[in-house]
């Protein structure tokens, strides 16, 4: 009973914060700079409402809810990948050569994830169905985790002073790294009951953590223009050289 109650509270809290942020961003005069965040939050809100409807209609253990959940998760992971690409673009606003390099890297990464997931899936299951969607979204999820970490390191490397972007990237980091760390803990404790219940709460709590960091970044941190120090780092200069 209490487990269900906590789950419902987390679910409704997520929907409420997402709705408030979407409304706030829609009324914000500088919403153009945060268009990617607005779109991602709208996706989160839409899928949250759809899942809530499927959950109340069919129930938690029904195959219908499972299909709705994993299909919408696939869409959310794609949206998250596009959001990370958008953050890379914002970080490279004044460095066109670096952006050309990063753009290629992102395209290759996406193609490779699709290929590796396909090879792994065909080897184990065969055919194109929901398991492939889950396999692909799981691989893309962890690719987003690695890319987001690279983005954070790149922001430190180029000396970006865009505090808002830094906080937005940290929020995405909570979303991706939190569940991964919880899964690692689950394995270290050999799947004990405590870590299993912790895992079920950590996924929604990491999303809530991301939303709260984003709320702080959007409301309290003034979105300064992305000023990059003119000093070129030798490593990046070598990579982006023609």
């Amino acid at each position, binding site marked *: 009973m209490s487990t269900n109650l906590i789950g419902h509270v987390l*679910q409704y809290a997520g929907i409420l914060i997402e709705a408030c942020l979407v409304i706030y961003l829609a009324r914000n005069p500088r919403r153009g700079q945060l268009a990617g965040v607005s779109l991602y939050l709208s996706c989160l809100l839409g899928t949250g409402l759809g899942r809530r409807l499927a959950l109340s209609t069919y129930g*938690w253990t029904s195959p219908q809810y499972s299909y709705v959940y994993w299909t919408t998760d696939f869409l959310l992971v794609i949206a998250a990948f596009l959001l990370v690409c958008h953050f890379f673009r914002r970080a490279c606003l004044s460095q066109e050569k670096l952006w050309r390099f990063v753009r290629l890297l992102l395209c290759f990464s996406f193609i490779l994830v699709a290929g590796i997931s396909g090879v792994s899936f065909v080897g184990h299951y065969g055919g194109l169905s929901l398991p492939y969607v889950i396999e692909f979204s799981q*691989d893309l999820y*962890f690719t987003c985790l*690695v890319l987001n970490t690279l983005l954070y390191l790149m922001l430190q490397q180029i000396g970006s002073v865009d505090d808002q972007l830094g906080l937005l990237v940290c929020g995405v980091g909570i979303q991706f790294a939190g569940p991964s760390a919880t899964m690692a803990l689950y394995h270290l404790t050999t799947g004990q009951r405590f870590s299993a219940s912790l895992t079920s709460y950590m996924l929604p709590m990491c999303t809530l953590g991301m939303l709260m960091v984003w709320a702080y970044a959007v409301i309290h941190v003034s979105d300064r223009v992305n000023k990059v120090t003119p000093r070129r780092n030798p490593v990046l200069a070598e990579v982006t050289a023609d």
Partner: protein
Amino acid sequence: MKNLVVTLLLALLVVLTAVSVRRAVAGTSPSAGSPTLVAIGTDPVPPLLPPPPPKPQPQKPSN
């Protein structure tokens, strides 16, 4: 051309790192023997559907 190769190698490194991390932290559950999955959103994660049963092989007509 050099840039293209470097980018491709870096992308391969990124994806292989991601797949390795996934295998390390969410490969197979020690208790149930099924893979543990990560997801986005505040909704409860549903249990995995069981894999579809194998199709029955057509029986050969006996002579």
